[in-house]
């Protein structure tokens, strides 16, 4: 049981401030100054969390962040299933990101869908010396020959591309002309660009704008009858099937989903999105750019939503419905009512086991705030949270809608800080990534991976909430945590000795 629950907000604030000060002592002076700006304690009523964000990571500290390539290939583009995504450069980037993100999709892999293939130009020294454009030209021909049913190609740049002066845009245009206007998208997501995955998301969004929307224009294909209820799901990567357990709710309330960005998505869906009446945006961080663009260019409104946990789901369904007529508003109420017995049963079963348990989170995208409501639905309390690659607008949303007073806030957390914080605050559960998982489990702290759902999921929607609750329960209440200490090492000193 955590230490915090018995303390007042003021005590917690003082303790957290002290913890930050204590932790900063390890750093050389310059580093301590820089890191101090990223750590704080939330004060309720403030418009943001009082931390700097989206700044360069400090060398040598063991940042948890990734790179722009990870943001583009790994997050935004990789899940588009009917396009072939080339990891352009040396072999490693594509290899380490091969199939690891669990963007589920339906298709005949290797024939009409390609998400779990690792296609790379596998750069050798001569490609660095002489440039890789010729190899890229040949490689596109080979894709066309071996994967004739692909609906498009993207070129995901790895670090060397931008350093050796390759012109992948020229190659893309030339090959597109050669193949009757085929969609070929060059993406300048070299890993050294920006400070994290985040710029990769932005670059990938811009590539959709420049190489898909601008190419097609708003009135082009596909040909389907529009309805007043057409919406697009934006920023759901279908991890463990998240987009599916979301889509089913939207359709049950009477909406028609015409596109998924980008989990289980297709080129046709990207192209059709300018016909949507509303873009509904789950991961604001990675896809707000294209949502804003569609608003400006095509006049499509967008609204953020949160499908983690029944409180936020109901709130979101009503919010989405508010953009439509009574039919949809009634539909939202019908859906909420339909799932209420499931929600009641899940809460009745799991809340008593999880009530009062504390959680520390460190994740990317939307999760450091979005999942808080789901934990609260189960009676759990989030006592620390932070973003791997958030910006100030993420921290604003967090402060204004999610975190409680005195919550510990940490931006671009590193291994050292995370260990110290967990050691001191002793949460009942930590939610973070694969690199953190085993560190905390060794310490005897229950852990769930909150990027990959620890190979579980979906966690979105009502169906997902049941799985979420079950997973948190089995992490926190696993009997194994009682076995961490060897019994002969756990014994208090015999009293006899003390008496001597």
């Amino acid at each position, binding site marked *: 049981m955590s230490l915090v629950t018995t303390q007042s907000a003021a005590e917690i604030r003082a303790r957290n401030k002290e913890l930050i000060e204590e932790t900063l002592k*390890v750093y*050389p002076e310059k580093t301590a100054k820089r890191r101090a700006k990223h750590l704080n304690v939330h004060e309720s009523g403030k418009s943001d969390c009082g931390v700097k964000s989206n700044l*360069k*990571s*400090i*060398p*040598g500290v*063991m*940042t948890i962040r*990734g790179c722009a390539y990870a943001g583009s290939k790994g997050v935004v583009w990789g899940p588009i299933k009917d396009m072939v995504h080339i990891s352009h450069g*040396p072999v*490693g*980037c594509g290899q*380490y990101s*091969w199939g*690891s993100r669990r963007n589920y999709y339906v298709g*005949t*892999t*290797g*024939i009409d869908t390609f998400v*779990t*293939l690792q*296609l790379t*130009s596998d*750069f*050798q*020294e001569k490609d*660095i010396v002489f440039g890789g454009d010729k190899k890229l030209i040949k*490689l596109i021909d080979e894709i066309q020959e*071996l994967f004739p049913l692909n609906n498009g190609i993207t070129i995901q740049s*790895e*670090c*060397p591309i931008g*350093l*050796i002066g390759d012109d992948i845009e020229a190659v893309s245009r030339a090959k597109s002309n050669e193949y009757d206007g085929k969609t070929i998208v060059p993406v300048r997501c070299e*890993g*050294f*660009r920006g*400070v994290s995955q985040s710029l990769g998301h932005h670059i990938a969004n811009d590539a959709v704008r420049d190489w898909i929307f601008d190419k097609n224009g708003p009135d082009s294909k596909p040909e389907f009858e529009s309805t007043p209820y057409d919406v697009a799901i934006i920023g759901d990567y279908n991890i*463990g*099937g998240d987009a599916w357990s979301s889509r089913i709710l939207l359709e049950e309330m009477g909406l028609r*989903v015409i596109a*998924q960005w980008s989990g289980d998505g*297709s*080129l*046709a869906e990207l192209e059709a999105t300018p016909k949507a009446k509303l873009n509904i945006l789950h991961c604001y961080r990675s896809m707000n750019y294209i949502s804003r663009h569609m608003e400006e260019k095509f006049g499509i409104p967008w609204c953020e939503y949160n499908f983690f946990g029944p409180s936020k789901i109901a709130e979101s369904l009503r919010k989405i419905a508010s953009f439509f007529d009574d039919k949809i508003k009634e539909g939202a109420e019908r859906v909420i009512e339909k*799932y209420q017995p*499931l929600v009641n049963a899940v809460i009745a079963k799991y809340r008593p086991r999880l009530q009062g348990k504390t959680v520390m989170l460190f994740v990317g995208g939307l999760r450091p705030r979005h999942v808080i409501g789901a934990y609260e639905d189960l009676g759990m309390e989030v006592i620390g949270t932070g973003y791997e690659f958030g910006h100030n607008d993420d921290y604003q949303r967090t402060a204004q809608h999610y975190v409680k007073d005195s919550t510990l806030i940490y931006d671009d957390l590193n*291994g050292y800080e995370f260990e110290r914080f967990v050691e001191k605050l002793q949460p009942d559960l930590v939610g973070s990534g*694969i690199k953190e998982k085993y560190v905390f489990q*060794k310490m005897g702290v229950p852990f769930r991976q909150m990027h990959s759902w620890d190979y579980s*999921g*979906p966690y979105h929607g*009502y*169906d997902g909430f*049941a*799985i979420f*609750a*079950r997973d948190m329960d089995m992490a926190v209440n696993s009997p194994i945590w009682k076995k*961490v200490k060897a019994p002969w090492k756990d014994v208090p000193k015999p009293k006899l000795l003390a008496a001597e």
Partner: protein
Amino acid sequence: MAQSAEHVLDHFELFRGPEYQQMLAKKKAFENPRDPAEVERVKEWTKTLEYREKNFAREALTINPAKACQPLGAVFASVGFEGTLPFVHGSQGCVAYYRSHLSRHFKEPSSCVSSSMTEDAAVFGGLNNMVDGLANSYNMYKPKMIAVSTTCMAEVIGDDLNAFIKTSKEKGAVPADFDVPFAHTPAFVGSHITGYDNALKGILEHFWDGKAGTAPKLERKPNDKVNFIGGFDGYTVGNLREIKRILELMGVEYTILADNSEVFDTPTDGEFRMYDGGTTLDEAANAVHAKGTISMQQWSTEKTLPFIADHGQDVLAFNYPMGVSATDDFLMALSLLSGKGIPEELARERGRLVDAMTDSSAHIHGKKFAIYGDPDLCYGLAAFLLELGAEPIHVLSTNGNKAWEEKTKALLAGSTFGQDCNVYPGRDLWHMRSLLFTEPVDYLIGNTYGKYLERDTGTPLIRIGFPVFDRHHHHRSPVWGYQGGMNVLVKILDKIFDEIDKKTSLLGKTDYSFDIIR
């Protein structure tokens, strides 16, 4: 609605229900899907010889390679030294990838730092990143040594590690006498096994050859010890422990170089050990005096072994020795080098492995296998299969070179069971897909990614290799030594028996052959 609190449906059940299936069928209309007949036609076409020819004619495109890049191997080798923090100079995303990759295989923490170079460093060079990075790592993580390697970004812009580390020390980032060995590990040369080799050589060079000009070179005073190098190995935990047991049984005085068997297998007891075990820095330095060095993987130590030989030691390279004869050769060579006899206990272990092979050989004899993986692993597996009377048909190594091809061909040519086998250096798993369709085999041996081949071609996969992400704990058991051979044998047999059961379990159709005794 199928979901319930009483019986929570997971993703593999939930989406099979009619509501989701109908939803997904409706979604199709928005996907501009290909004509199903056309999909079927192309699917069948990819199984043909014609497709195989086009596939093998590829010159630019690599599809599903069985190799990773150099720095992964450098990190793997570096953590095999006591208190050592791997420091990769270049873009930070790479380090996130290596750590994730190693953690997914070993189910263990993997600690490593990056110098977090960004666009300005691409223009001006990464010196400041190195200086600040070393100072931060040194203060935060209190390592005994920081082993530096590079990502391709730092290599493309030509950062000079030797000069950078020197400057960092001058600027006080770390004490002047603090050990910072380094290796250039460009991702566009070789693979993870090359990176292992470069990093290990870099560390030995540092200790033996005067710490980058800051100390006198060590003078070799030969002793009776034997150095042992495992190479890049997904089974490092089980294998190195087994090797230590064997060395101790024989009474050989030894030093394991890059002993990462502890750091990738720390206990859960309330404490996170960022560093654990490993070759001590003294041992690393004193390894120069050893009588000789044995490498279990020739192609993981192509530069390290000649470097050691140049210092006057006898060196010996094996190719991932697996099974009876390869283990015999290893033990006899070890005996010869160390002057220690092979104890009776090992002879008994040998006898047990031979016993097990005689008991089971009828089920393996004549079965056809395809193998892929790192070059030494492929060689070792092929040799063991030949001993079992199995027939390797395709042996493929994406990071295998011409010399590997020739050596492996010679091995196969020397056995009646290797006559129908072809060797494929530099090829990938999409090539393997064509091979399995056009020249089918009974079983496939490889890493986790082989499951895509198993799904496409129906060839049952036996998971031996790196990485294995989707099965747990196999890295804890050895595959070297006679006992390791036993583990491999059991793994192969289990799959064979499971497959027979699977094929004979249709009630009312194949009630025969569903045997209780085999």
